[in-house]
């Protein structure tokens, strides 16, 4: 299946910038989310009540539709680990502090499937619409769903992932003693138009995605079996994009991938639980710019979960 459009809003200059992978910077605590002027993509009447996560997701989704020319995808599938945090916090604060009726907007928009729902409303799309929330594997689960749809009768699937940082999340991670990530929390959205049809906008092939939950005892075996089932091996992998954020040591990475170049995605995107989607956009552009024929995205943001996604060049 082909990746016919990609769009990312992140702490890199990634949105509608074809050269963004050549402008990557290493993030520090001062990096801000780089956002477009949302009014160019969303009507003011709808935009006024949308939180950051909805704005990011909807804008990337619409950008993918525009790039691909597919105005009515056969499915809209979204992965999000923590969902609409800002609206959830607002709703809970209202419930705790206001007397009388609670204003409904924040509650309505606090559910995880708000993003996919808003995309559906905006595109006037009545097809399959699902949100996957599976901790650090939310994006991979969305991808697997998209692959299953494409293996049946669907032709074009809009799939992506989005998570947002809010100040309260930093406070909570500090209270839980997770100081290593407290100041690295970030937001991003990455969406893709996947298709069974190769078009002039095709950039790379999505070969497969696979997850293992609550069992990482033999990562090497899991990786090898995943590659074998796709008729390839580590010897043919040009690059690994890892999302580990310290859950896997450098020596373990070396043991897993030997001499293959490994780029830690988190150094460019910060910490949130769907950075694998950012990794997939990065891998797509790298393949499109001939920086590799086969790239593996290795996700162990939660050290009891493994997510594996394999991309290949159009020629492979």
């Amino acid at each position, binding site marked *: 299946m082909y990746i016919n459009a990609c769009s990312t809003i992140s702490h890199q200059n990634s949105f509608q910038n074809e050269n963004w992978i050549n402008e990557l910077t290493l993030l520090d605590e001062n990096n801000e989310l780089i956002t477009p002027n949302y009014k160019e993509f969303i009507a*003011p009447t709808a935009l*006024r*009540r949308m939180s950051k996560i909805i704005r990011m997701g909807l804008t990337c989704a619409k950008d993918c539709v525009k790039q691909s020319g597919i105005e009515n995808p056969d499915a809209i599938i979204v992965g999000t680990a923590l969902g609409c945090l800002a609206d959830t916090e607002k709703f809970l604060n209202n419930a705790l502090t206001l007397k*009388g*009726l609670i204003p*409904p*907007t924040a509650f309505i928009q606090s559910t995880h499937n708000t993003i996919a729902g808003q995309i559906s409303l905006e595109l006037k799309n009545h097809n399959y619409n699902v949100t996957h929330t599976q901790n650090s594997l939310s994006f991979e689960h969305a991808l697997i769903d998209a692959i299953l749809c494409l293996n049946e009768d669907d032709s074009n699937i809009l799939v992506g992932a989005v998570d947002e940082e809010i100040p309260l999340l930093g406070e909570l991670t500090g209270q839980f003693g997770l100081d290593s990530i407290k100041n690295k929390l970030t937001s991003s959205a990455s969406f893709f138009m996947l298709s069974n049809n190769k078009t002039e906008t095709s950039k790379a092939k999505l070969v497969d995605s696979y997850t293992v939950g609550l069992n990482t005892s033999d990562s090497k075996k899991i990786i090898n079996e995943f590659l074998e089932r796709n008729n390839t091996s580590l010897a043919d992998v040009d690059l690994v994009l890892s999302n580990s954020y310290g859950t896997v040591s450098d020596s373990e990475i070396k043991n897993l991938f030997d001499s293959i170049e490994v780029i830690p995605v988190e150094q460019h995107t910060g910490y949130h639980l769907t950075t694998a989607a950012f990794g997939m956009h990065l891998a797509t552009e790298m393949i499109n710019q001939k920086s590799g024929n086969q790239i593996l995205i290795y996700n162990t943001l939660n050290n009891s979960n493994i997510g594996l996604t394999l991309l290949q060049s159009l020629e492979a």
Partner: protein
Amino acid sequence: MEDLKEKLKEQIIDRLNLEDVNVTDFSDDMPLFGGGLGLDSIDALELIVLLENDYGIELANPEEGKEIFDTINSLADYIQKNRK
């Protein structure tokens, strides 16, 4: 009555996050929904909450909503007659 209309406009702009709208942008007889101010069904729910929390008016019959929420004039008139 004029003070109430001005206050209602300010409350609507604030509660409904009408970022680019000023009090002077909508007249007392401009339709709030549809082609006028462009409010929608979620806004209607917010207005019902505003009526109850700020003016002590419980909208018992939803059928009346369309008439009450037609314009600032109709909303102010309804509040004037029913506020507690």
